[in-house]
């Protein structure tokens, strides 16, 4: 720790602001501006984690969101803990605590490291193959593998942070604030377009902002300074919103993008309270400019994964931006000019570069010459064949490449180092482009995939479009934008650019070695530990499709989605299978580009807002009276009303008995209500219900059954004729919206000639149902001016009435089999009418009952509940409800399907009643019904759909569906349960009052 790895000047570091943080329990210091990765590197910490499969020591590899190795857990064991965070993106703050993942018991002594020694036993497809072995084998190892191969820990406490969603509509979004993004945003905003510029980093300017060498000049200034001026001007522009720390996660069709804006993640924990942590931006842009840059490629050689091996561009970034030397004895390995940029930066800062190993034989660009001038040895036409150093690289072995690049020749030289920078050229970051449906083409010259066709109004500019040099970017970007934004000119038409970068590259996907492949470990996917060997094995075993190879070897399936190694995997497949890269295609890049927190995804929709619910106008009364609630669709319905610590069973038994003995009251406001008007209303009902409606007299009610066109029961309910051309239909609570949608569909698309208008009035009315032998006394005392005699107000009829001055509709209809009334009043009066009924019913022990008692009472009468006793495979005939299917009507929805060969089968499942041999035995709903348990396999005849203990009949009753059940009355069947067999007899589904005497009691 005595090493001084900080250099004097840097772009981002504020040396007056020292910050302490902890990594794996040890306290370190960094400066404001540091990322966790740069601060660790400044403290000479390279080893940060273990790899997933072999538990090899791994170090920081990159300086951006593409990081595969430095994946850490933040604030372990606290409510704000977060796994799988990239140390390269975490900005340090006072009190930051981070720890390694994937290592047990510690990063320095990792028990899973034994997998590294066992690696011949862990080839491609290891996990698949293991699963195929006898299950007993797997079980023994599961515990061990699970524990040692974790990917961080989920938080166990509620998230204390607040998240938000925000919609943004703009003319243009520019993704990425590197040099091309800055230019694009400026041109766009200056031309009056409402522009949004986002970048995942906390600063603007991308990689050009720290380019201060004389070899890259714009208008005779070094490119970094030039860009800084551009940014200062940009910030003053109107029409422009700039968002840093904002990562675009998804790019959907029609230019709809999702981005995560981090607002407090860089602040000390104590400063985060009462602030929004992250925002999910839902962006709809007329035009999208993608300027996402490029990701440097690593190179694939034996033991290319040791701590201390970084991307060459990352070493440059750590030096320029954070003032950190990644090593004191640096070696660079490259196949292109990029590593020389790094070398020049390091030389400028006084950081020692030992040598450069260049795959290319002929190199003579200005950059290379400048490096040579500094007495740095360049091994031209050489490659690294191996590295050593367990927890930190300490040596590289190099050899000369043959002319064709397929093998190494000559003798091996070993060089000492403590850091190796690698550069395999650049891969355009086309992830978002392909997410949007764009198609790529393969450019042979430098072996890159670049955008070819766009699926929406968008354009890719800069290095994500395959333009890697300053002069290309500054020449092409303005031209592309003039066309894309439909503008006249830009101020960038005559910019003078000097770039000393040569595009010459020698691309070798898998560098040759002096050892056979089987004896080497050239990693392609660092996070998932797959090697070139694994990919070749997969091909040998017959896999051809890139998607299959990816899954078999798990290449590209980590949290980094293989941002570094996917291209090499493709290259190796292409070479081995002798297929063209362009024809192989890439694997699919799926959102999110970088992982999102669940908090961001749900935003404010947490707690009671997670799933919104609907309350009836009488809800508060139910709450006050101790109701337990049941979710029915989005509704909260009173389920039962326990008194004095009753359990559900006790409460339901009491409520059910009271309803039949004297009076019960139910809040039925949730039932769907559809107002139907028009001269063809009766004809319309004829077509949508199975029974006939034309002859229903005004003031009468009728029960209707609605089918799907396939003949299966869809919904049911009572409809009342209020006037000649005016009906009010009730639907089931859960089916209301769908029924409305279905009726609208037929009206608009099949029968537009019908004069019918539908209005949903579910929320407009409160519905109070009073039932029981004393219901008439109660309701007639609440509604005094109505004649309640059976002659004037018979069962299945309706009356308009007034309660005080309030209009109400009263239906005499029953879902319980009891004499009962349904009072419908304008919703705002619901609670007061309910309370009036309660008051009037006091002397009759009026008992509020919930949905559970309602279900029990209707089951006693054998009434079905659509969705409980039916499941979209039941016809009215299956339900033994033939009586409701009109034989006379020419057509109605579903009629033709009732005599398809399948629906007329005798052995369909049919609704029956079930009585248990032991009247106290209550069946479980969903239990299977069988005849013969000795036959193997046991034949399932059906299942129990509704089951209750009836306090009125003093026995267990149940409904069920049984194959051919209609013709099995009196037959004995068996319900096998886990520990017993229950004997049942098939009966009629109506258990109580078959003669309907109680309706008029």
């Amino acid at each position: 720790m005595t090493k001084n790895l900080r250099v004097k000047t840097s772009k981002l570091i504020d040396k007056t602001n020292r910050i302490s943080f902890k990594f794996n329990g040890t306290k370190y210091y960094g400066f404001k501006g540091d990322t966790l990765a740069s601060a660790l590197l400044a403290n000479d910490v390279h080893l940060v984690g273990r790899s997933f499969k072999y538990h090899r020591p791994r170090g920081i590899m990159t300086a951006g969101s593409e990081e595969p190795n430095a994946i850490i857990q933040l604030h372990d064991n606290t409510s704000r803990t977060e796994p799988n965070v990239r140390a390269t993106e975490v900005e340090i703050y006072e009190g930051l605590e981070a720890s390694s993942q994937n290592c047990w018991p510690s990063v320095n002594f990792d028990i899973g490291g034994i997998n590294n020694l066992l690696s011949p036993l862990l080839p491609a497809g290891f996990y698949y193959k293991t699963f195929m072995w006898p299950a007993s084998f797997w079980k023994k190892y599961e515990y061990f593998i699970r524990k040692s191969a974790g990917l961080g820990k989920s938080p166990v406490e509620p998230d204390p942070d607040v998240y938000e969603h925000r919609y943004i509509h703009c003319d243009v979004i520019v993704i990425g604030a590197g040099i091309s993004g800055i230019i694009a945003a400026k041109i766009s905003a200056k031309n009056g377009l409402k522009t949004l510029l986002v970048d995942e980093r906390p600063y603007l300017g991308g990689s050009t902002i720290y380019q201060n060498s004389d070899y890259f000049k714009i208008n005779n200034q070094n490119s970094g300074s030039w860009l800084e001026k551009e940014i200062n001007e940009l910030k003053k522009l109107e029409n422009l919103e700039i968002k840093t720390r904002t990562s675009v996660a998804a790019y959907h069709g029609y230019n709809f993008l999702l981005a995560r804006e981090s607002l407090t993640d860089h602040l000390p924990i104590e400063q985060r309270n009462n602030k929004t942590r992250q925002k999910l931006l839902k962006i709809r842009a007329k035009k999208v400019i993608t300027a996402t840059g490029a990701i440097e490629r690593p190179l694939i050689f034996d033991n290319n994964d040791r701590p201390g091996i970084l991307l060459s561009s990352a070493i440059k970034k750590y030096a320029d931006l954070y003032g950190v030397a990644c090593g004191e004895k640096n070696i660079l390995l490259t196949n292109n000019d990029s590593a020389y940029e790094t070398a020049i930066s390091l030389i400028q800062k006084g950081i020692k570069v030992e040598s450069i190993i260049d795959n290319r034989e002929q190199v003579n660009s200005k950059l290379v010459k400048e490096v040579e001038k500094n007495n740095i040895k360049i091994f031209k036409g050489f490659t690294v064949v191996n590295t050593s150093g367990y927890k930190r690289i300490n040596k590289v072995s190099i050899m000369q490449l043959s002319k064709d690049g397929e093998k190494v020749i000559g003798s091996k030289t070993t060089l000492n180092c403590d850091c190796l920078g690698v550069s395999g050229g650049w891969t355009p970051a086309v992830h978002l482009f392909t997410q949007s449906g764009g198609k790529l083409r393969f450019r042979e010259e430098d072996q890159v995939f670049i955008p070819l066709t766009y699926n929406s109004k968008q354009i890719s500019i800069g290095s994500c479009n395959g333009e890697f040099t300053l002069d290309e970017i500054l020449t092409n970007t303005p031209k592309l934008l003039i066309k894309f934004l439909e503008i006249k000119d830009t101020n960038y038409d005559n910019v003078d650019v000097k770039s000393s970068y040569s595009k010459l590259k020698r691309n070798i996907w898998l560098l040759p070695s002096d050892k056979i492949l089987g004896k080497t470990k050239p990693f392609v996917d660092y996070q998932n530990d797959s090697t070139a060997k694994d990919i070749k094995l997969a091909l040998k075993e017959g896999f051809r499709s890139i998607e299959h190879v990816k899954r078999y070897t798990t290449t590209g399936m980590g949290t980094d989605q293989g941002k570094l190694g996917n291209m090499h995997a493709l290259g190796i497949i292409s070479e081995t299978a002798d297929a063209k890269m362009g024809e192989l295609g890439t694997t699919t890049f799926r959102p999110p580009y970088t992982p999102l927190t669940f908090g961001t995804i749900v935003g404010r929709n947490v707690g009671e807002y997670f799933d919104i619910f609907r309350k009836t106008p009488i809800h508060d009364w139910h709450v006050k009276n101790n109701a337990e609630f049941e979710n029915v669709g989005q509704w909260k319905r009173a389920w039962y009303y326990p008194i004095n610590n009753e359990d559900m069973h006790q409460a339901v038994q009491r409520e059910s008995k009271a309803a039949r003995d004297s009076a019960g009251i139910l809040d039925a406001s949730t039932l769907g209500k559809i107002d139907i008007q028009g001269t063809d209303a009766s004809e319309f009902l004829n077509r949508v219900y199975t029974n006939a409606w034309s002859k229903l007299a005004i003031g009468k009610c009728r029960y209707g059954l609605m089918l799907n066109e396939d003949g299966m029961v869809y919904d049911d309910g009572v409809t009342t004729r209020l006037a000649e051309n005016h009906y009010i239909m009730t639907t089931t609570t859960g089916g209301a919206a769908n029924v409305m949608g279905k009726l609208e569909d037929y009206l608009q698309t099949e029968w537009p000639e019908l004069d019918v208008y539908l209005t949903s009035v579910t929320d407009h009315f409160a519905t109070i149902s009073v039932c029981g032998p004393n219901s008439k006394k109660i309701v007639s005392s609440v509604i005094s001016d109505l004649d309640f005699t059976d002659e004037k107000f018979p069962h299945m009829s309706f009356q308009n009435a007034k309660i005080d001055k309030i209009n109400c509709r009263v239906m005499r209809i029953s879902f319980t089999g009891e004499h009962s009334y349904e009072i419908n009043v304008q919703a705002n009066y619901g609670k007061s009418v309910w309370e009036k009924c309660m008051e009037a019913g006091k002397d009759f022990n009026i008992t509020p009952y919930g949905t559970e008692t309602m279900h029990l009472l209707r089951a006693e009468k054998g009434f079905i509940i659509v969705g409980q006793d039916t499941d979209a495979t039941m016809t009215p005939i299956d339900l033994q409800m033939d009586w409701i299917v009109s034989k006379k009507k020419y057509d109605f929805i579903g009629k033709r399907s009732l005599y398809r060969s399948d629906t007329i089968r005798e052995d369909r499942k049919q609704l029956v009643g079930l009585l248990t041999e032991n009247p106290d035995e209550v069946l479980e709903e969903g239990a299977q019904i069988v005849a013969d348990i000795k036959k193997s396999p046991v034949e399932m005849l059906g299942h129990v759909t509704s089951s209750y203990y009836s306090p009125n009949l003093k026995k267990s009753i149940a409904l069920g569906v049984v194959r051919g059940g209609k013709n099995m009355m009196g037959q004995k069947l068996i319900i096998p349960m886990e520990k017993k067999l229950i004997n049942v007899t098939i009966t009629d589904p109506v258990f109580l009052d078959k003669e309907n005497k109680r309706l008029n009691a």
Partner: protein
Amino acid sequence: MFLIYCPFCGEREQSEFKAGGEAHIVRPKQPTELSDDEWAEYLFMRKNIKGVQFERWNHIHGCRKWFNMVRDTSNDEIKAVYKMGEKPPTK
């Protein structure tokens, strides 16, 4: 997420709409005259085209109106929308 032009309301987000399957399948006027096979053809058989497809859509969280859409399923480009009862565009 699509931007859909409702012929009655104008351009709205896809989340306001519901897809309703293939368009221009007319419910037979005389179902009882049909054989099981003919009825099954109407009831169950739908195309699933990669390319230009005619579809029904409903502005369910808006005006509740049904309308037709011509959509290229290979790239989700909406080529046209038109009201129920109107003839599909020929081009």
